[in-house]
């Protein structure tokens, strides 16, 4: 999630963040894995029903290029268009300078979103 959040940095997960609202595009969220001891910090770039693709590092959402001001490092990602399933969101980290194969991203069920960072 660099440069928005420093790799190896410390934060708290605010679990009540989505008590009254649903996660939306642009939110930084904590996504749990098998339990809550390990969580990933990611940004939601698409919600259910959206289509997305990457072309030479640029995000295309529902066919239109999106200006992502939080992405500061150059990226050359290419990803064929795909749709986000019902009850899922699509999450990616902000540091896209790393190769795609070594970056954790993709569709995750809403129920796996535990909350968001406290700051």
């Amino acid at each position, binding site marked *: 999630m660099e440069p928005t959040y420093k790799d190896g940095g410390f934060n708290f997960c605010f679990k009540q963040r989505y008590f009254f609202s649903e996660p939306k595009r642009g939110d930084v969220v904590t996504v749990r*894995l*098998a*339990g*809550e*001891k*390990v969580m*990933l910090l990611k940004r939601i770039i698409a919600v259910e029903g959206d289509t997305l693709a990457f072309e030479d590092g640029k995000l295309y959402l529902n066919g239109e290029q999106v200006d992502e001001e939080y992405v500061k490092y150059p990226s050359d990602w290419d*990803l064929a268009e795909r749709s986000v*399933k019902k009850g*899922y969101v699509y999450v990616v980290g902000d540091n896209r300078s790393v190769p*795609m*194969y*070594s*970056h*954790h*991203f*993709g*569709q*995750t*069920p809403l129920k*796996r979103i535990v909350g968001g960072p406290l700051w």
Partner: protein
Amino acid sequence: MNKWTVTGAIVLVAGLAYYFFAYDSPEKQIRKQFAVLAEKLEKQAEESPLITAGKAKTAADVFAYICTVDIPEYDIQKKITTKEMARHILAFKSRFVAVSVKYYDLSVELTGENRAVAAVTLETRAISTSGETEKDIREFECFLEKTEDGWKFYQINTVLESTVF
């Protein structure tokens, strides 16, 4: 307090002690298999190739003769025999000078007679021959069956819909 009450209390305590310390419940047995797998996947910096090969074979022994492995992010979707598994593990370990494995949030659910499913987050840290540290963290769903030789993994999947995770 009469002697029957005392005897009953002793029997109860002995039963509880047996359950917690001596009785190997299916869940405990499965957790032990995970521990064996982690131990055999790990590699020490000065481990000899012979030891590495032996540990790869022992690690493969916790898998059923044919295990279905479904890890789409690495284009792995196939059935693997125990021998092939040992080769894959050996090939993986040979790429690194040292490997450490850690589990988080391991949960086991018995799904039927001699069947169980386990969910776990697996963290792997490895030091390549060029000195670089590679870290991977991934969630797996593991299906196990009880055989005459103990619990064996017969299917392993990554869980989250992904391009990578």
